[in-house]
């Protein structure tokens, strides 16, 4: 069968991918969508009930086909070869960048730097911008609900430079205590604020635009960890008013191994490089080098080309569904899950009310360790995350060692939630004491 997505990728044009484009706000049929994900079609003794999309999403045929097509038909290194398939590969890689730029509302594709994932994008900011602009005695503001990827890079920088880290507190209800922000910014020492857009544990949607406004008024730049928002809801960097935004492909129906950083172009132009090597240079002499233009200045070495092609196809696919519709679907499921989970005795839901969250529902069940809960669920083919979800400080704040988490994407169905609830009743019986 022809592969339209990969064909377009190779041809360097961007139009809607499968499934057929529907008006953005109109709901899609999750059952039809589900049929387009081979891992969910795979015959098994017990059907896979995948409720761990916040860890990584599943991939539709369109993405897998686009990647296979690249490897089978035009695999070549980019930005180098003079021959036809090398040009085709380069066009496909740069086309993926254009599509991502459009997807995020970036002013130009040059504002998109491809990285390995969100973690690398955040490290890029810390290494390049951080070492350039943030000095001893300065401060950085983060939040207490950060994933370790938006905490540890700043801790490393803080320890190296003598920078103070400050944190916007999290309320017991799992929201940011925004009233604390003016006080944190008051002394004018804060040079950067970095916050998660949607919490990977609580699902809380944070008021990034307001945080960015206050950060800018205080003379700080604003970075956003959008790992959980870009895959699920419309994200427009201009509307958010941020300076940096990190995202990752594998949570947005794309492959692992690629993600990216959006940054305002003038910042990227001025920032020193992150990794050194091939492609990021314009001219190399033994005595020194001149850097390439942005974004290539930040893309050292051979980049994940097939993954970029896959990411481009994932963007097409998501746009085909409509991000408004995806978010509405996720939130509807989260609300349904919260209602159903509340029926389970001794179940404690974490985080804010449904109307303030995305498609993520974390909980604890009596005093049963989440690993035990997850093991019983696994026996019925139900995949949930159990542990601290790379957010140990948040769990400490909530006073729990770990939690279990169910998270959704466009292929998730209410029946998945029903199976989860049934499994939780079972787990309660097994471990009752």
């Amino acid at each position, binding site marked *: 069968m022809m592969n339209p997505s990969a064909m377009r990728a190779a041809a360097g044009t961007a139009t809607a991918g499968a499934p057929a484009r529907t008006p953005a706000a109109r709901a899609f049929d999750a059952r039809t969508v589900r049929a387009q994900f081979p891992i969910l079609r795979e015959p098994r003794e017990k059907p896979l009930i995948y409720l761990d999309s916040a860890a990584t999403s599943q991939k539709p045929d369109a993405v897998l086909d686009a990647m296979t097509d690249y490897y089978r038909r035009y695999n070549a290194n980019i930005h180098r070869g003079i021959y036809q398939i090398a040009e085709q590969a380069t066009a496909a890689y740069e086309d993926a960048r254009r599509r991502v730029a459009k997807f995020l509302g970036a002013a130009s594709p040059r504002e998109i730097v491809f990285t390995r994932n969100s973690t690398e994008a955040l490290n890029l900011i810390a290494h390049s911008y951080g070492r350039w602009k943030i000095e001893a005695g300065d401060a950085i503001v983060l939040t207490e609900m950060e994933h370790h990827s938006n905490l540890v890079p700043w801790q490393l920088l803080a320890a190296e430079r003598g920078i103070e880290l400050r944190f916007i507190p999290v309320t017991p209800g799992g929201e940011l205590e925004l009233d604390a922000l003016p006080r944190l910014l008051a002394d004018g020492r804060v040079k950067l604020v970095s916050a998660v857009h949607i919490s990977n544990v609580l699902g809380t949607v944070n008021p990034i635009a307001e945080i960015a406004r206050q950060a800018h008024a205080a003379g700080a730049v604003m970075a956003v960890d959008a790992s959980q928002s870009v895959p699920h809801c419309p994200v427009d960097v201009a509307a958010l008013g941020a300076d940096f935004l990190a995202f990752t492909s594998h949570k947005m129906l794309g492959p692992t191994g690629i993600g990216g950083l959006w940054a305002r172009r003038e910042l990227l132009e001025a920032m020193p490089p992150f990794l050194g090597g091939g492609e990021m240079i314009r001219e190399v002499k033994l005595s020194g080098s001149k850097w390439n233009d942005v974004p290539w200045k930040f893309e050292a070495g051979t980049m994940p080309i097939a993954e970029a092609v896959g990411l481009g196809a994932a963007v097409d696919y998501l746009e085909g569904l409509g991000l408004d519709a995806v978010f509405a679907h996720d939130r509807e499921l989260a609300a349904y899950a919260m209602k159903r989970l509340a029926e389970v005795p001794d179940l404690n839901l974490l985080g804010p009310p449904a109307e303030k969250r995305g498609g993520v529902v974390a909980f604890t069940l009596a005093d049963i*360790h989440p690993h035990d809960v997850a093991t019983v669920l696994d026996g019925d083919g139900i995949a949930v995350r159990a*542990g601290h979800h790379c957010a*140990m400080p948040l769990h400490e704040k909530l006073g729990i060692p*770990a939690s279990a988490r169910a998270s959704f994407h466009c292929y998730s169905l209410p029946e998945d939630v029903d199976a989860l609830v049934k499994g939780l009743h079972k787990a309660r019986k097994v*471990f009752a004491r």
Partner: protein
Amino acid sequence: MSGWDELYRENILDHYKHPRNHGTLEHPDITFEDANPLCGDKLRMDFRIADGKIAEVRFSGQGCSISQASASMLSEKLEGMSLEDAKKISREDVLEMLGIELGPVRLKCALLALKTLKGGVYGIHRWPGEDGEDES
């Protein structure tokens, strides 16, 4: 038989629900605490030593059924055992004691009690571990 009822055999659940030697000792001769950061499991073991033997042992902490059952079962085995013999308990001994097949993640849960014991009886902060027991 699905995966979990294989894992949560009667004896595991029995030790989890009715842990033996649970609690702490006042003025223990040896006390040691260790954790499995991946799971948030924490375990403390207290020992009273008499004539080179473990006269009394208590464990406390929080964790999954596997880590708690493993600590409970190990504590039963330790009572009356010489410190020298306690040092010789291997990871295979513990797995045999539990009698279940474990994947790499739950293996760490199962072995936390052994790690805590070794840390205590060797009197070192971090027991050097055995082959294949290192943090991954």
